[in-house]
């Protein structure tokens, strides 16, 4: 049994206070790939792989909590370079790629049992059990992107080795000339507990009990890494007239269909590519695997809760009548703006909206 890495939450909180919204440090991050566990709503404990933010910016001490999604990385609008230092504590090589951002890649190959050269990783790797590597993007462009392992992708991404990285075009502008006043980040992912158990138990791989991910059968559906029925920490405090930017990221394998009630979503971009007319509104989206979409929600009426959920109806604990609740899994979505139309801090709807850092970008660091 792999032991979960449990470290104090304190450094995480310190980091959050030190790094308020929009004032990120130089875009250089130290990430540690490691193991943790998540307890599902039915109390099943699932081993995950994830990334931890090394809060003292060196790998001399093990700090930061391994989460999936990994820490949300923010590249300042004025910075064009992102550097990620990776230390890999996992038992197989890991790398980091950012689809949609251009850098020099160094694919890694291996020779299979039939003598064929086959690719193992999209770029250079940090070796298993303590290896380190550094990745640099020198012309980082604005938008919402996902970083993920570029090694043994079929397994490692499912296991949780992904996170978000964002860059604004300018202060308060997600893309040139497109402003926003509030922000939420929403990761979709799934867990097939059979795969996680096989990887954790050493029964995954050639000649073992599970030889591939072909029988993928997710049982838990996660939002920002949470499989719970009611989410917390997703929702910013909003007011009538706000332009609420929701960064949607599908880190899973299945197509999801986020649907918003009581308002509509103005689609700005896909995969960090701004639409020719970033004004078209949708009520439901097709959020394909690996895709990011930036949408704007503009609260129009005070007191109206705008709920966001997966129109495909996938819920953790799909057995029984919605897993012990009468509702199924619902993302509380965007809290009702106050009827007075004034901005308040720390509000949220009864469904667990939460303040989300007083309107700063919503952290996805949770365990």
């Amino acid at each position, binding site marked *: 049994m792999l032991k979960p890495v449990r470290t104090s939450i304190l450094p995480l909180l310190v980091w959050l206070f030190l790094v308020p919204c929009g004032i990120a440090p130089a875009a250089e991050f130290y990430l540690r790939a490691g193991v943790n566990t998540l307890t599902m709503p039915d109390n099943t404990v699932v081993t995950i792989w994830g990334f931890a933010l090394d809060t003292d910016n060196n790998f001399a001490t093990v700090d930061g909590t391994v989460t999936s999604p990994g820490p949300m990385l923010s590249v300042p609008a004025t910075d064009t370079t992102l550097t990620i230092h990776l230390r890999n504590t996992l038992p197989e090589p890991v790398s980091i790629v950012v689809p949609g951002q251009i850098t020099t890649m160094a694919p890694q190959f291996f020779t299979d049992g039939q003598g064929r050269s086959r690719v193992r990783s999209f770029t250079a790797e940090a070796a298993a059990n303590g290896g380190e590597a550094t990745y640099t993007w020198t012309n980082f462009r604005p938008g919402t992107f996902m970083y993920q392992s570029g090694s043994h992708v079929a397994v490692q991404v499912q296991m949780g080795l992904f996170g978000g990285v964002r860059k604004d075009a300018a202060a308060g502008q997600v893309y040139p000339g497109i402003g926003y006043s509030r922000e939420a980040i929403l990761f979709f992912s799934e867990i097939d507990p059979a795969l996680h158990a096989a990887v954790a138990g050493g029964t995954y791989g050639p000649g073992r009990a599970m030889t591939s991910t072909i029988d993928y*059968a997710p049982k838990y559906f996660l939002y920002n890494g949470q499989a719970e029925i009611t989410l917390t920490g997703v929702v910013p405090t909003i007011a009538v007239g706000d332009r609420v930017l929701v960064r949607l990221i599908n880190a899973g394998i299945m197509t999801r269909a986020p649907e918003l009630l009581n308002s509509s979503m103005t689609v700005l971009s896909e995969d960090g590519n701004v639409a020719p007319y970033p004004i078209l509104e949708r*009520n*439901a989206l097709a959020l394909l695997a690996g895709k990011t979409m930036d949408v704007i929600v503009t609260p129009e009426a005070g007191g*109206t809760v705008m709920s966001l959920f997966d129109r495909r*109806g*996938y819920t953790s604990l799909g*057995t029984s009548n919605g897993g012990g609740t009468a509702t199924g899994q619902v993302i509380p979505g965007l809290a009702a703006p106050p009827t007075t139309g004034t901005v308040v801090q720390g509000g949220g709807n009864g469904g667990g909206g939460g303040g989300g850092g007083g309107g700063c970008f919503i952290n996805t660091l949770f365990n």
Partner: protein
Amino acid sequence: MKQAVVKQALIGAVLALWLWAGALPGHAAITGVTGTSFSFVAREGYVSTPDGGSVYSWGYALDNGLMQYPGPTLIVNQGATVTITLRNELPAAAGNVSIVFPGHAATASGGVAGGLTREAPPDGTTAATYTFTAANPGTYSYHSGTRIGLQVDMGLVGAIIVRPSGFNPANPTAYNHPDSAYTYEHLFLLTEMDVPFHQAVQAGVLAGAINVDTTTFFAVTWFINGRCAPDTMLDDGVPWLPNQPYGAMVMMHPGDKVLLRLIGAGRDSHPFHHHGNNSTIIARDGKLLESAPGQGADLALSDFTIAMSPGSTVDALYTWTGEKLGWDAYGTGAEYEHSCNGISVNAVNPASAGFDPVTREYCPDHGKPIPVVLPSDAELTYGPNYGGSPFLGSGGALPPGQSSLNPNSGYFFMWHSHNEKEMTNYDIFPGGMMTHVVIEHPNVMLMGGN
């Protein structure tokens, strides 16, 4: 001979055409219920599938009506305040039921509290009431907001059509702009079912507790407007499909503009593919594809396979004239005398520019013979939709004993999910998410609505 009989009929029809002018059957409109106040009841029922299946399902019924799949199509006017009360007569094991209205700002009252909205408990009497203003015209869906993975698959879905303010049935538009003008409109509400899932739910109802795993969802049967092909091609309201009142057969004349109101109402995405011509997608999710308010559908796009993801709606305009076929769809030679822009097909130079104002024939191809040697009867295998000739509106001799479902010699084009697996009824091909459009000769009177 039969061919001559048909031609005589056509000659008569030509004479009658002028009498009909302006009096052709009303625009094929979508069957639904109009008004501002509706009483829904969630009930159980059985959905008939052409493989012989009878699938236990849940659906919204209107008043004292039967459960129907999909629920009643609501046709309301822009600006109207719409109120829907919902009672729940499902068995107790089904639990609460609700309705949500994507694209509308709705309020709910009554019933009991739920995750997304107020819900109606399965006591048959406690009503939840939903109210919204139909602020914008377009095509919308409604569906259960309770245990979506379970209840959407069980059938608790439906369509809403909001007519633009100032809607004129004689000159209809889908939105407040002439770019959305159409001749006929048809609904294509796309769903699928995991039939074993329904059987498990029914067993659960009988046992008093539903215990099914919605994460293993695996559809085996696919529907347009709640019917599987070939039932999609039956008329609305046929008595032997009491829980599935809506057909999906499209009839049109050349040059008509058919508005396709497509709804992704299930849990899976479906590539809706229409043969015969591209369509023009003018709106998504009830929003005209316009670069700025009032610009019309200036961002419309031409397509022939429309990605219908869950929760999405698409409005697309489809027409067919035979344009650029490269041959005269009305036939050539003395047997097929007809004119285009007043020029006989047998004239020395029959072609002209543009379209005939009556037949909508594409006049540049007028008089061009079909570029194949037509095989003899003995060399043909006849399908049920062949009228006896390749020419629109002209029948032909059929072998003795060969019947035709195409008495007016129209052109049939299949419209279907291009995920071909979805054209089956639980492993039996053909069926599923498939229907036809038939292009009828301009002289042929079309049947009623779809």
